[in-house]
């Protein structure tokens, strides 16, 4: 019996906060529309912005009211939050696009508490002090939970962006360029692990076929580490290019990488290699029967 009473008493402030949020929905939403969190979020015109900001404010108030009514003010997984997760994600994303850190966005969410708190205290004037304090505490806990929900939502959104960007990066970083009639090249930048090496091979072999290339140059100037897996990938690509009738030339092997490959024990002897991309192009052009003369010198460019 006493336990039940305690639970009822504990739940009462939360329910009161829920009622208050429903009652004052419009005023709270309008006050929040001016808060930093909703700045730069919506539309171009001032009135369109205000309408959208107030609309989002209402949705957030509704969500908080239903969470409070459930008595789950401290639970970021409360059902009430589900309805506004997308809106919160968009809002947080807009703020981070405006240059704010996750911490600053979190502070802006925290800044929503004061206006709501003022209204709550004004609303409850005449009620016992203890009750008002309990209600204010419940609201504070609820707003803290909102803060957590926004942060979680934002982190998840960023994670999704990273996941989405991975395949894009993979393709973006493997442009096969035509250097001359019959000479294609792919400048590699970054890591050559599993999936990416496959993309590179396919792109290069496609270009060999499409452009009837006699030479396929792989420039590894931008590859920081050439270990046995990368070497194996280069060897296999060279072999595949050979089967398509193109000679594969690997260029951009820096001195440190050359020494490391030798020590590692990988034999790149079956592939033509050149120190620089320009050496590789010179090699290809000479083989194609072109005269390559450097301006003002006797050596190839």
């Amino acid at each position, binding site marked *: 019996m006493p336990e039940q009473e305690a639970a009822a008493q504990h739940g009462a402030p939360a329910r009161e906060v829920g009622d208050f949020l429903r009652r004052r929905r419009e005023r709270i939403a309008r006050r929040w529309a001016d808060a930093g969190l909703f700045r730069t979020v919506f539309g171009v015109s001032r009135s369109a912005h205000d309408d959208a900001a107030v609309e989002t404010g209402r949705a957030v108030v509704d969500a908080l009211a239903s969470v409070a009514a459930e008595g789950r003010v401290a639970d970021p997984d409360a059902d009430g939050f589900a309805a506004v997760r997308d809106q919160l994600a968009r809002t947080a994303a807009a703020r981070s696009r405006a240059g704010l850190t996750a911490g600053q966005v979190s502070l802006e969410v925290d800044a929503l508490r004061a206006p709501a708190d003022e209204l709550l205290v004004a609303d409850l004037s005449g009620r016992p002090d203890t009750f008002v304090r309990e209600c204010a505490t419940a609201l504070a806990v609820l707003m803290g939970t909102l803060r957590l929900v926004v942060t979680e939502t934002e982190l998840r959104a960023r994670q999704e962006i990273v996941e989405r960007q991975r395949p894009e990066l993979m393709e973006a970083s493997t442009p096969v360029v035509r250097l001359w009639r019959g000479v294609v090249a792919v400048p590699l930048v970054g*890591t050559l*692990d*599993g*999936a990416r090496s496959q993309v590179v091979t396919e792109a290069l072999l496609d270009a060999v076929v499409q452009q009837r290339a006699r030479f396929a140059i792989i420039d590894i100037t931008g590859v*920081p*580490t*050439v*270990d*046995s*897996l990368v*070497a*194996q990938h280069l060897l296999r690509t060279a072999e595949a290019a050979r089967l398509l009738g193109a000679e594969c030339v690997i260029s951009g092997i820096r*001195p*440190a*990488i050359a*020494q*490391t490959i030798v*020590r*590692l*024990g*990988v034999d790149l002897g079956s592939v033509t290699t050149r120190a620089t991309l320009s050496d590789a192009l010179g090699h290809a052009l000479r083989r194609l029967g072109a005269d390559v003369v450097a301006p003002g010198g006797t050596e190839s460019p």
Partner: protein
Amino acid sequence: METAGGASACLPIRSDLDLVWVRQHARQAAAQLGFGLVAQTKLVTAISELARNTLVHGGGGQVECTPVSRAGVRGLRLTFRDEGPGIADLDRALRDGHTRGGGLGMGLSGARRLVHEFEIDSCPGTGTTVTVTSWVTGPPRPREEP
């Protein structure tokens, strides 16, 4: 006596992305200790081989990266640990050209040549631990064995 000359780090090896991070971390740590470009490249390449072994053959694990110093020479020590199936025949695994994963079979033997000190401990069923150390200016003398 060896003393740690800086903060050590323990990094997970669970995915291809972790491999990238392990390499980057090791490269930065080596550069900070004063490793030259060639020494850095050798060490990082060895680390790349060993980390991939941990991931592919060991089913994932972790690496501990610790700056060390002995007789006034600074170095970097890395310990790769997995709880995979282990290696039954170490001598064979350390031979050039031996492969279980369709690679070139140069990973373990090549990595051993790229570092100054190499220790491997493995039993079938209990996993594999590989410890490598490289020194900024070559192995210090006199060498004290534990």
